[in-house]
């Protein structure tokens, strides 16, 4: 009964993650391409500047600055689906399931860091083109950035915990 319930929840998680990955592909990966190369006025409208000031060089820089965040995020989702699939198959404590959990955590931390760096670089690049006064702070970060970074670290820790638990279970099994 419990096994069935775990399978059900992991199946719901797999479906949820898959839908979210497709949304992420559309919103982040395609969106990144769209706002830089198709909707050419988008960035200029966001900052309220003349679109002519956003040169191709700036456009390319912005695209490649945000690219690592999008790719690492996608890798994180892939690991998350893989991990959930392992739980669904009842192979949680196998050695091959331990590294995806650590990988999810590392990908989350890295994506958050890259996103924060890209956001601040974008500000440094675009803000001088506006008429507004210089930025009050040299570095900007949001509460969400810190929260998701902590979650990443939490997953890394959970991965280590899983390694320890698997060892204990293996030792017991061998003993029995």
């Amino acid at each position, binding site marked *: 009964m419990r096994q069935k319930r775990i399978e059900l929840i992991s199946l719901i*998680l797999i479906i949820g993650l898959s839908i*979210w990955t497709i949304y992420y592909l559309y919103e982040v990966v395609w969106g990144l391409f769209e706002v830089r190369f198709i909707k050419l006025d988008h960035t200029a409208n966001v900052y309220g500047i003349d679109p002519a000031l956003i040169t191709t060089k700036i456009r390319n820089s912005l695209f490649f600055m945000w690219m690592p965040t999008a790719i690492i995020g996608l890798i994180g989702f892939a690991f*998350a689906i893989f991990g959930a699939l392992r739980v669904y198959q009842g192979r949680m404590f196998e050695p091959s399931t331990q590294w995806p959990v650590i990988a999810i955590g590392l990908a989350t931390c890295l994506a958050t860091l890259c996103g924060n760096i890209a956001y601040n670089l974008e500000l440094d690049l675009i803000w001088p083109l506006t008429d507004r006064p210089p930025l009050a702070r040299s570095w900007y970060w949001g509460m969400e950035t810190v*929260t*998701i970074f*902590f979650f990443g670290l939490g*997953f890394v820790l959970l991965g*280590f915990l899983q390694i320890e638990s698997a060892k204990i279970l293996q030792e017991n099994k061998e003993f029995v």
Partner: protein
Amino acid sequence: MPQKTNDTATKQNQKRSLEHRIRLTAMILFIAAICFWFYWIYQATTYAFEISWTDRLLRWRIVENHMEITLPIRIALFSLWLIVIALGSAAFYFGLRLLYCMRSGEYFQESTCRAIKYFGMFLVLAMVGDTVFASLDHVIATWNNTGESLVTDKGLSMGRPFIGPRFEYDPGDISLALCGVGFWLIGWVFQEGFRLQKENESFV
């Protein structure tokens, strides 16, 4: 024979090193999480207080300026956000418990598994609450709107319509809710693993 002894010693050293790393990471995270909890509570309660008990609501431009924001509306808005703060705080509490268990070296214990599970569960609830209540607060705020403009001492006050329930979401909330489901699931599986281990032990 000496080779075997060396192997065992190396394995023990590796295990000790991993344990040390887990404990150190857990301790750093524990301290950081406590600081962040206080910061989060300060930010969240300030927001809830400003929305409910100050005139910030009028600056939303969805409430008619000539309407008085009644006490029940203020109480309803405050209670709504207090629920999210309470659920978020419960998630923080179980997160801290989990880190404390790890810091104490309780890796595969009933308390650790339960902390992981409840941490995930309350996180999901808090994020669902945040998403649902974010669309409900417009309903409550515009409850008394008449839709008629009025000339007041301060000039013309525009009439604004009542806003019904509508779905809005923050991608960050959905990501955190999915993380929560992940933690919940892992906690559950750990609990099952722990149960199996107990059964094995009682069998021996």
